[in-house]
C-alpha cells in the first residue's frame, strides 16, 4: 500500500471517528438531561475523538518514513558482497543505489549476477515487510486512539479545552515554521561553507582576484589547482546592481511622486495597475528579453556608433559585448522600478497633508513643496525602500543567468561582460558534479555571502521603514 493511500485512510478514519464521536456524545447527552448536561458541545467531543485517532497515527507514519531508508540501508549491509564492502563507503553507496534502482523499476527477475540478485531480493523483502508493518501499526494506533477517546465521552470531560489546546499548539508550530526555515537556510549554507573553507582558505575566497572554479580530476593535470577568489564576482554583482539602481531609482521615484502628488484619480487608477503588471512578470521573461532583444540591440547600437565615429575619422572602438553588464543591469532596473515606486508611494502618501499645506501657504509651488518638504520628510522611508531594492538586485538570478556572462572579469566598464554571485551559484550547481567537490561547495559559500549581505540590508531597511512609519502614525 502506498504511503499516500495509508495517509488518506488514516484521515478517513479520523473523519469517521468524528462522526461517531459526535453521535456518541448525543447519546450520552440523552441520559444526562440533553446537551446542557455535557461540558462541551457534541462536535467538540467528536473533534477530540478524531484528533486522538488521526494525530498519533500520522505522526507514526511520518517518522517511520523518515527513518525507514537509513534503517533498511543498514540492514542491507549483510548481503552486500565482501569485496564491495572493503572497497570503501562510496562503492557501497553506489552499489546500493544500483540495487535500489533495480528494485524500483521492478526488474528483479532479469538480474543475472547472483550476488546482486540476493541483495535485490533482500531489499524487496525488507521493503514489503516494512510497509506491511507500517500499515498494521498505524491502523492499530488509530483505532486504539479512537477507542480510548470514545471512553472519555462523559459529561465531565473538558473536550473543548482539550481540542483547543491541540489547535493552539498547531497554530504556534505553524508560526514557528518561519524560524525553522531561517534556521534551515543558515545551517544548510553554513555547514557546506565550513566544508568548503576547510579546502580553500577563507582569506583567499574573500580577497582573491582569480575565479576559475575547476577541481582537478587527476593531480598532475594542467591548471589542476582551481582558483576561488570571489572578488570579481562581488564586483560584477555590484556593477550590475549599480546600473540597475541608476535606472530604477530615478524612474521609480519620479513615478511615485507623480502618482502621489500630481496625477488625477483616473490616471492613477490606470497607471498603478500597469506598473504592478511590470512587477508581476516572471524574472525569466525579463531574462529572455534582456538576452535576446536588449543585448543584441545594444551591441548593434555600439557597432553603429563605432561606424559613425569612423566616418568622422575617429579610431574608436566601443566593442559592446553581447552579454554586457549594461543590458542585464538596465533590464533589472526596469524590473525593480515598480518595487521602488510602490514603496516610495507608500511613504510619500504617509507624509501628513498639514506639511504640504504649510508649504503652499508660504507660497511654494507644488514641485518646491515636493522637493523641499515632502521628500526630506519621507527620506528615511525612501532610503529604506531603496535598500530593499538593492537587496533585490543583488539576489536577482534569472536575468543575470540569461543575459550576463560567465567570465569572471574585473572591470568597471558596463559594456563588457561580467559575472555575478548568483550566476556562479547556478552554473556550479546545475552541472553534473560530485556533491563533495570544492566546486559545488563553493556555491554554498557564495550562497552564504549572498544570504548574509541581503539579510543585513533587509534588517537595516525594515528597521528604517518601521521607524519612519512610527514617526507619522
Amino acid at each position: 500500500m502506498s504511503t499516500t493511500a495509508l495517509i488518506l485512510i488514516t484521515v478517513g478514519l479520523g473523519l469517521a471517528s468524528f462522526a461517531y464521536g459526535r453521535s456518541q456524545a448525543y447519546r450520552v447527552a440523552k441520559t444526562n438531561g440533553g446537551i446542557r448536561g455535557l461540558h462541551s458541545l457534541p462536535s467538540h467531543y467528536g473533534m477530540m475523538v478524531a484528533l486522538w485517532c488521526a494525530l498519533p497515527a500520522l505522526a507514526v507514519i511520518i517518522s517511520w518514513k523518515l527513518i525507514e531508508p537509513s534503517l533498511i540501508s543498514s540492514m542491507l549491509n549483510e548481503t552486500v558482497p565482501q569485496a564491495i564492502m572493503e572497497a570503501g563507503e562510496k562503492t557501497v553507496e553506489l552499489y546500493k543505489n544500483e540495487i535500489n534502482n533495480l528494485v524500483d523499476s521492478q526488474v528483479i527477475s532479469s538480474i543475472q549476477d547472483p550476488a546482486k540478485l540476493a541483495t535485490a531480493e533482500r531489499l524487496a523483502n525488507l521493503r514489503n515487510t516494512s510497509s506491511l508493518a507500517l500499515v498494521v501499526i498505524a491502523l492499530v494506533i488509530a483505532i486504539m486512539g479512537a477507542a480510548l477517546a470514545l471512553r472519555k465521552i462523559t459529561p465531565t470531560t473538558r473536550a473543548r479545552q482539550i481540542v483547543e489546546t491541540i489547535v493552539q499548539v498547531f497554530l504556534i508550530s505553524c508560526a514557528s515554521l518561519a524560524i525553522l526555515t531561517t534556521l534551515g537556510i543558515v545551517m544548510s549554507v553554513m555547514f557546506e561553507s565550513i566544508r568548503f573553507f576547510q579546502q580553500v582558505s577563507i582569506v583567499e575566497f574573500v580577497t582573491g582576484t582569480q575565479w576559475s572554479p575547476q577541481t582537478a580530476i587527476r593531480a598532475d593535470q594542467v591548471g589542476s589547482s582551481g582558483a576561488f577568489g570571489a572578488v570579481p564576482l562581488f564586483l560584477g554583482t555590484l556593477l550590475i546592481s549599480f546600473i540597475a539602481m541608476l535606472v530604477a531609482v530615478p524612474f521609480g521615484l519620479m513615478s511615485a511622486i507623480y502618482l502621489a502628488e500630481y496625477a488625477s484619480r483616473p490616471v492613477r487608477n490606470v497607471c498603478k495597475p500597469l506598473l504592478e503588471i511590470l512587477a508581476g512578470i516572471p524574472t525569466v521573461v525579463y531574462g529572455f528579453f534582456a538576452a535576446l532583444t536588449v543585448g543584441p540591440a545594444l551591441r548593434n547600437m555600439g557597432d553603429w556608433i563605432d561606424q559613425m565615429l569612423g566616418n568622422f575619422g575617429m579610431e574608436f572602438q566601443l566593442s559592446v559585448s553581447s552579454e554586457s553588464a549594461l543590458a542585464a543591469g538596465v533590464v533589472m532596473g526596469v524590473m525593480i522600478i515598480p518595487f521602488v515606486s510602490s514603496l516610495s508611494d507608500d511613504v510619500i502618501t504617509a507624509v501628513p497633508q498639514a506639511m504640504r499645506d504649510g508649504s503652499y501657504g508660504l507660497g511654494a509651488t507644488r514641485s518646491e513643496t515636493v522637493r523641499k518638504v515632502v521628500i526630506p520628510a519621507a527620506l528615511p522611508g525612501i532610503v529604506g525602500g531603496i535598500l530593499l531594492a538593492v537587496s533585490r538586485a543583488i539576489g536577482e538570478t534569472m536575468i543575470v543567468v540569461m543575459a550576463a556572462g560567465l567570465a569572471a572579469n574585473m572591470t568597471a566598464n558596463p559594456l563588457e561582460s561580467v559575472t555575478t554571485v548568483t550566476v556562479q551559484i547556478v552554473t556550479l550547481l546545475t552541472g553534473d558534479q560530485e556533491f563533495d567537490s570544492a566546486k559545488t561547495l563553493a556555491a554554498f559559500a557564495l550562497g552564504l555571502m549572498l544570504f548574509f549581505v541581503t539579510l543585513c540590508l533587509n534588517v537595516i531597511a525594515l528597521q528604517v521603514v518601521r521607524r519612519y512609519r512610527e514617526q507619522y502614525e
Partner: protein
Amino acid sequence: MSQPESRKPVDTTARVKASLNKRYAAEKRFRLYGIVAIGASIGFLFLLLASIVSKGLPAFTQTFVKLDVALSTESLGLPETPSAQELRAANFSGLIKQTLRDRFPEVSSRGDKKALYSLISTGAEYELYDRVAAKPELLNSTLTLWVPADDELGSIIKSGADLTNPDSIVTRMNDKQIGWAKELQDAGDLDVRFNSTFFKNGDSREPELAGIRAALMGSAFTLLITFTLSFPIAVAAAIYLEEFAPQNRWTDIVEVNINNLAAVPSIVFGLLGLAVFINYFHMPRSAPVVGGIVLSLMTLPTIIISSRAALKAVPPSIREAARGLGASPLQVVTHHVLPLAMPGILTGTIIGLAQALGETAPLLMIGMVAFIVDIPQSVTDAATVLPVQVFLWADSPERAFLEKTSAAIMVLLVFLILMNALAVMLRKRFERRW
C-alpha cells in the same frame, strides 16, 4: 558689520515676480520628469509584451507537408498480417524516405537525398506508426498523411517568404531544397495549420515536435503541492500572530523572521532545498514534490503577511460581540473572524501562488532543469515547470525555438493574468468596508 545693507528695504514683490517665470518653468519641468518616468516604464512594459507576442505568435501555427504513403507490407518488410511487435520494428522511416524519393524522382545523389529527407520532421515516422498501429487495416492501401515539416522549412513558409526568389530568404536551407519546397507549395501540398503538437507534446530536441504539455503538468503538480502546504500553514500562522500571540520576545522574533524571509533571494531557498531535502532526506531530484515544498517555504511569508492584513481588517466589535455571546477565543476566530477575512486571505494566496508559478531560480537548484519528454503523471515523477522550460528553450540555437520560447512565455503570462484577475475579482466582489 554688513548688517546695515541687509536691513535695506527691498521690494520683495518685485523679486518674487521676477523669479516667478523661472519657478513656473521648474514646476513644469518637474511635472514632465514624472510623466516621462511613468511613460517610460509603461512604454517598456508594452515593448516587452509586443516583442514577446510578435515573436511567439508564429509558434501557434505549424507547417504541414502532405504525403501519399503507399503502405505496402512488402516495402515495410512485414508479413501479410503482422503482429504488434513486428509492426513496431517495421521500417517506417524508410517508407517515408521512399515516398519522398517517389515524389521527387529526379533526386539521385546521396547529398541531395539527405537534403530532401531533412524537409520532413523526424517525427513523421512515429506519426505514421501511430496511425497504422491504431488501424492495421490501413496496410496495403495508400494513406494521405499530413506530417509536420522540419523547423527551417516550417518557419520560412509561415513567414510567407517568396520561394521563387531564394536569395531573399535568410535560411540554412540550400537553393535545391527551396526549389522542392516551391514545387510542394505549388501542388498545394504545404499547409499552415494550428499547432496542436505544442500543447500535446513534452520537450523535444526537434523544435517542430517540442511542446509544453510536460512543463504545464509539472507546473500544475508543483503548484498543487505549494497550495496544499502553504495555504493551511500560512493561515494558521497568521491567525496565531494576529489573534493569539502574546506580546513577548518570541513573537517579536517570529515577526522579524517572517518579514526577513519575504526579502531573502529566491535562489537561497533553492540552496536550502538542495541541502536539506535532496541531500539530507534523499527526496527524488527533479520532482514536483520537492519543488512544491521549496516554493511553499518561499511563498509562506507573502501569504502570512497578507492574511494578517485581512484578519486585522475585521473590526474588533465582531470579536467582542461573539465573546459576549459566550464563544471561546477559538470559536470567535473560526466562526466569525476567519470567514469574514477569507476573501482577503484567498486574494493574498492567489497572488503568492502566481509568484510561485513564475519562479525559476530555486527550481534550478533542485534539478528541475532536466530534459523531460514524458508527461509527468504524479508529484514524484521527474518534471520541469513552465518558466524553467522557457529558460531551457531560450538557450537553444535553433531559430524555431525562439518562437517556442516566446509562445511558452505567452502561455505563462496568460495563466498569471488569469490568476491575478481572479484575485482582483475576489477582492472587488467580497471586499467589505466596515
